[in-house]
């Protein structure tokens, strides 16, 4: 009886955000739509005039669009990788946070790849790489890996959603046709549960190498060239580490916002922030190690063209972003996350904001500083890159669109996996019970 009541309470509190919408949310949606519309307007202008309205030039052919591309694809590692690893290691505390994480993956991936649309000189020909690929190009590797990853992460988001879709089919006052169609006739029989478990288990294993491959090939777009400080063997793992690092930060911020906005306090508990905070601290140390190794070898090797880029980062044109990056990605998270007293919800959110800013700057520095200093013998006087209005507007629009997609998702589906939380609750109860029985014996 008690268990039934608890189940009912879990269902009610998790379905409430889907069924009820506050007025505040509409205001937020309107603001996000305004930002997106302005981005769209600027993009239309760019389509008409060409990339001349953006800030790129020779030799900085790649600018903010590519920075955002790398950044968002990095964020997309939040979900899938974290939830897959936690599922495989059977970490019980993962249950309420996996779906929020997996949703980040899908939406960040959509935002990341959308940058190709405004980055290309001729976006109307975006389908050509799929029809006539030149397989030696790292860009084609990107196309291949990212499309597999996108399909994989959508599947991985969808599978654990099925039992909740069936619940919505039975309880939702609206859109029942959609839920009926999506829930694939789920009845919750033991056979169906077994099949679902097997499918989720398979996807959790499969998605990890795919996720690793994605950020590796994204880094190879740079590392396969001979450009100073791009042509680096550690770029693959360096990018993967940065991706997971920024992904955790994005997840923590999303959880903190959702918790307040949709009253999910009983599900996103301090222990989640504490555990993810520790994971982020580990990644911060790993990130610093990679950054140090990357810059140390260049400095010691002292090859003039490489050193030109390095100097621009340490003390030249890129020194402000560089040292801000070091502070945001390492110093701030280290100071906050090292101590249990500061590893609170507020603390981890502050650290996460710093990490996101720092990781965006890292992508910016990697793309722009190397591009700004081509091999000096033939350097053309291009001047340094500064982003134009259209690039900033489109960047803002992407962040807004990301938030909007998340809100739409929250209005259609529960953000916490109801059946998994119930299952966890059940296991906990049983464990308590066996505990008492054992104690009596």
């Amino acid at each position: 009886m008690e268990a039934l009541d608890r189940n009912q309470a879990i269902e009610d509190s998790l379905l409430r955000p889907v069924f009820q919408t506050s007025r505040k949310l509409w205001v937020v949606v309107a603001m996000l739509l305004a930002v997106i519309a302005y981005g769209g307007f600027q993009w239309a202008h760019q389509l008409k005039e060409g990339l001349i309205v953006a800030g790129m030039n020779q030799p900085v052919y790649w600018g903010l669009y590519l920075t955002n591309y790398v950044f968002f694809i990095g964020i997309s590692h939040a979900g899938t990788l974290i939830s897959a690893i936690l599922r495989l290691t059977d970490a019980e505390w993962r249950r309420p946070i996996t779906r929020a994480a997996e949703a980040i993956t899908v939406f960040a991936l959509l935002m990341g790849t959308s940058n190709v649309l405004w980055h290309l000189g001729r976006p109307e020909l975006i389908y050509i790489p799929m029809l006539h690929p030149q397989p030696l190009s790292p860009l084609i590797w990107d196309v291949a890996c990212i499309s597999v990853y996108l399909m994989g992460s959508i599947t991985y988001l969808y599978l654990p959603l099925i039992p909740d879709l069936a619940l919505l089919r039975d309880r939702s006052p609206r859109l029942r046709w959609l839920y009926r169609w999506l829930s694939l006739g789920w009845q919750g029989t033991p056979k169906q549960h077994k099949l679902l478990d097997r499918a989720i288990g398979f996807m959790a294993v499969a998605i990890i190498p795919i996720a690793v491959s994605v950020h590796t090939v994204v880094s190879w777009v740079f590392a396969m060239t001979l450009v100073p400080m791009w042509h680096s063997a550690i770029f693959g793992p360096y990018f993967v580490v940065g991706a997971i690092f920024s992904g955790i930060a994005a997840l923590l911020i999303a959880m903190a916002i959702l918790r307040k906005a949709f009253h999910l306090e009983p599900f996103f508990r301090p222990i989640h922030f504490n555990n993810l905070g520790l994971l982020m601290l580990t990644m911060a140390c790993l990130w610093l190690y990679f950054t140090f190794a990357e810059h140390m070898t260049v400095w010691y090797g002292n090859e003039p063209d490489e050193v030109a880029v390095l100097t621009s980062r340490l003390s030249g044109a890129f020194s402000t972003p560089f040292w801000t990056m070091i502070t945001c990605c390492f110093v701030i998270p280290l100071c906050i996350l090292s101590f249990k007293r500061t590893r609170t919800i507020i603390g981890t959110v502050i650290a996460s904001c710093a990490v996101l800013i720092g990781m965006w700057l890292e992508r910016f520095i990697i793309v722009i500083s190397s591009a700004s200093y081509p091999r000096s013998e033939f350097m053309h006087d291009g001047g340094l890159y500064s982003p134009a209005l259209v690039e900033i507007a489109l960047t803002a629009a992407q962040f807004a669109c990301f938030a909007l997609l998340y809100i739409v998702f929250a209005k259609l589906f529960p953000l916490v996996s109801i059946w998994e939380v119930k299952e966890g609750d059940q296991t906990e109860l049983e464990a308590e019970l066996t505990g008492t029985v054992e104690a009596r014996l």
Partner: protein
Amino acid sequence: MPTWGMAIDLDRCNGCEACVVACRTENNVAPAGPEQAALGRTVEWMRVERHVKGEFPNVRTRFVPVLCVHCDDAPCVSVCPVSATYENPEGLNAQIHPRCIGTRACAQACPYTVRYFNWGTPKWDAPLEQTINPDVAVRWKGIMEKCTFCVQRIRRAKDNAREDDRPIADGDVQPACAQACSAEAIVFGDLDDPESAVSKLSESARAERPLEELGTGPRVFYLKEGDWRGSVGPQSSD
């Protein structure tokens, strides 16, 4: 089949930039205008870099005409996702304009920074539009372009040779830059023909290939006495 190559004698070059103007006219390279040029959007298939060495009064300036070096193993070719750039059997690095989708990966991969992007629609203010060369396609916004070694002139020379029923002779092909060079610093021809002027110059002890250490196998040779690589001073004037 010839392998086209070029030798540029830096000791002869006086930095007059006639080659730049000739190239622009021959190949329909649109002027960017002062504002866009200041932003680094100039398209110059041929540009002249200035390398200044020493301090006043012992200053020495080298002028280095820079163009696509038509690599044997070109970094730009492998990174293009749609094969818009490729190496033709005669050693030219060719850009197929209609196929280009504008990823700019080639430009970013090129160690010589000699690939140019059409940031906007190229335009010629009147009466300059009357100078457009009908032998060369006018490009459009959103695609890459670069030096072609005046492929239209190579074709014409081949056609002429075929009409006269003779093999193509050394000196038959003159790219616009070589033709315009008053100092006769630029020599073009077949690198596979050991008797050609460019072949002989490329064998000279004064000859050096730019950034040869990268393994790109450039087909442009620079000739000079001593080291021309000084501290990089003010760059080419736009």
